[in-house]
């Protein structure tokens, strides 16, 4: 292997990690514009040159979809940003999205060799830069599509997994149709992730590119209701189906007061704001109503999105209530950091016990108890234990519960023979195959609550498995052997 960078490794190690340009926290906590503006061309070029071009690029193993990270960074070093984004696109059709929402710090950047003694290469920021560069300069070119095949594949759900599966199959020449229950495409990327992390223009552009691969999309189509899985097979003529319906059903804590006005699931709260644009009421018709004090319960990325959204909706005090300590929070460090910068008040080791009502059946406060950490539980995190007599009330008029989601049961309950777990997830094997022939599933539907990138990994894995299945089914089993191994680490 030839090194691309002219710098010696010792020189590269001296370059500090380049930082993104970000909106001022005081400013951005009052608007819905994107927080990070990413790297500029100069910083991106410097950052690319920090890469040590390892002989054994462990970063690639850290990537759930197996992007040739070293390869794309080397192209970026040469200034070939379009070559770089196309290199990424070989493994991941949604680079502008992943560059924004992927938890790189616990994936590729966590294992980066440079990171052992210095800060890791800002792989995510570079991914985003090359995707944005291509977009801003209008340099996108559709990839080659294999010869059209007659077989029809249905994708249920247009979230990250469904979009990825659709793109991969369309590139292989299949006739792909996506069915989406909502009126807009994107799944959790649309209703869940706020615009200040993923602008709608980016999402629209990435989904348009999938349509340009020849993928047909039906919105307003609830599979299980508008047509069942068996009808898609028998009446619509689909030969294989990928289920990527996510984990869209909110769970509630089950504490008293959850029916009061002013209590939201994070799903409802974020859907009103992100999908329905309630922040722009009354120009948009969907209302949202919050108090001057808002409490968001939970410690994951959804909780961070909800609490940061609360600040932007005008909450004077936006509290994040979490029963363990900051260390155990499942949210990305970057999101926690951004929330802190934006004035979110963290109430850690605090557990809500009931929501209190005013005379109008509205929330007037949330009663909590203090917690301390005991021995580690089955998740490996220290178990929170209530401190007796520590109850206290936080005055709030809005409570948002971000305490987890589970899969929507509509498809499982209308598809005979589809095996599900006790948690309501669809059971799959390592190829994402379900208990029903021809049906594959992945993402949160089979994992129960994970990340955008893992959904994409599953979608990609399923596309490869579906391709193999359809080749075998159409008597081209010999071609299966020639199929290049799909590079998705499990």
């Amino acid at each position, binding site marked *: 292997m030839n090194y691309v960078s002219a710098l010696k490794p010792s020189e590269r190690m001296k370059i500090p990690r380049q930082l993104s340009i970000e909106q001022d926290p005081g400013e951005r906590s009052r608007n819905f514009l994107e927080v990070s503006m990413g790297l500029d061309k100069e910083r991106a070029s410097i950052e690319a040159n920090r890469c040590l071009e390892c002989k054994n690029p462990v970063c690639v193993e850290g990537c759930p979809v197996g992007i040739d990270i070293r390869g794309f960074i080397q192209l970026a070093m040469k200034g070939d940003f379009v070559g770089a984004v196309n290199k990424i696109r070989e493994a991941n059709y949604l680079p502008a999205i992943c560059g924004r929402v992927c938890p790189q710090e616990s994936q590729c950047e966590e294992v980066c060799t440079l990171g052992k003694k210095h800060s890791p290469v800002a792989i995510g920021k570079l991914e985003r830069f090359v995707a944005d560069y291509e977009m801003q300069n209008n340099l996108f070119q559709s990839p080659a599509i294999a010869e059209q095949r007659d077989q029809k594949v249905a994708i249920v759900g247009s979230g990250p997994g469904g979009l990825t599966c659709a793109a991969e199959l369309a590139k292989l020449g299949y006739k792909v149709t996506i069915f989406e*229950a909502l009126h807009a495409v994107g799944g959790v990327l649309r209703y869940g992730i706020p615009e200040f992390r993923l602008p709608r223009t980016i999402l629209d552009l990435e989904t348009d590119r999938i349509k340009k691969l020849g993928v047909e999309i039906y919105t307003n189509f609830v599979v299980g209701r508008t047509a069942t899985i068996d009808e898609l097979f028998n009446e619509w003529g689909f030969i294989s189906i990928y289920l990527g319906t996510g984990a869209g059903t909110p769970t509630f804590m089950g504490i008293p007061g959850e029916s009061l006005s002013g209590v939201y699931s994070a799903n409802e709260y974020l859907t009103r704001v992100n999908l329905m644009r309630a922040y722009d009421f009354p120009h948009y018709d969907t209302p949202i109503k919050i108090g001057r004090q808002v409490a968001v319960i939970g410690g994951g990325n959804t909780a961070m999105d909800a609490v940061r959204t609360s600040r932007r909706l005008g909450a004077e005090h936006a509290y994040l209530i979490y029963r363990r300590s900051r260390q155990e929070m499942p949210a990305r460090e970057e999101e926690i950091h951004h929330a802190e910068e934006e004035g979110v008040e963290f109430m850690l080791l605090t557990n809500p016990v009931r929501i209190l009502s005013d005379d109008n059946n*509205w929330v007037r406060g949330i009663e909590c108890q203090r917690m301390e950490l005991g021995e580690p539980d089955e998740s490996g995190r220290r178990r929170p234990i209530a401190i007796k007599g520590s109850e206290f009330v936080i005055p709030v008029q809005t409570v948002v519960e971000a305490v987890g989601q589970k899969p929507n049961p509509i498809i499982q309950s209308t598809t005979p023979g589809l095996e599900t777990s006790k948690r309501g997830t669809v059971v799959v094997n390592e190829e994402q195959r379900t208990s029903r022939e021809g049906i594959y599933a992945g993402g949160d539907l089979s994992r129960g609550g994970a990340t955008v990138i893992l959904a994409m990994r599953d979608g990609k894995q399923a596309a490869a498995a579906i391709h193999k299945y359809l080749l075998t089914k159409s008597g081209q089993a010999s071609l299966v052997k020639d199929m290049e191994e799909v590079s998705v680490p499990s």
Partner: protein
Amino acid sequence: MYTILEKQDLAPTLGKFVIEAPFIARKRKAGNFVIIRVLETGERIPLTIVDGDPEKGTITLIVQGIGKTTKLLLTKKAGDSLVDVVGPLGNPTPIEYHGAVACVGGGVGTAELYPIARALKQAGNKLYSIVGARSKDLIILENEMSAISDNIFVTTDDGSYGRKGFVTDQLKDLLESAAGISTVYAIGPLPMMKAVSNLTRSYGTKTYVSLNAIMVDGTGMCGGCRVTVDGQMKFACVDGPEFDGHKVDFDELIMRNRTYVDLERISDAALHHESIDLHTGMMYELR
């Protein structure tokens, strides 16, 4: 786009729409609803499917102008279209033979009740219908209900038509009579369904109500439509919309449905280009 093929004014604030929605028309059953949006900046609202024609690929909706979206919808004509119609949502009404049933409709609820009443009649039930409204001009589908009913009673609050009084007055007489009503289906405003459920509870008569809660997606995703039934949290969109009226916490739902009243007023004012103060209502002030 979902084209409006027919539009008929039933009353000054009531309209009937036949809408092209072929997939929904094939699958819909009595008790199902759709979620619609009228325009790109619009909200998603649930409406019960009143009728459908799988051959023509159409569904029928009856709409009362209450808020901005329904009022805007009433201004639409044949040839116009809705941006979104999704469904059929919710569980269909289980249609069984009970013997003699009473179907009680209040206001626009009669439109939602009609397909259920018709299915119950087709299942061999003896059908007693009670159709009520505030006044004569708000009585709808009387002829249609009459055609499928063994007996029909009309009540108006102001006495402008039929019996003066509430549907519960008529229902009480019916339950007292020799009609042998074993099951009651009541659809209308929440206070009406609450009153019906309270009445039938004392007679031990099984009562089904259809709950119109605040919804966003209608597929179990937002949890906005949560209602307390028999002490349990249920989602009206996927667990309902029909529930045992004797087990529903109506007071809680009535309160919850008031969450956005002031914002709905702002939205409505905007429809009429009235000036509005944006900051009124966006923040809930503790009193």
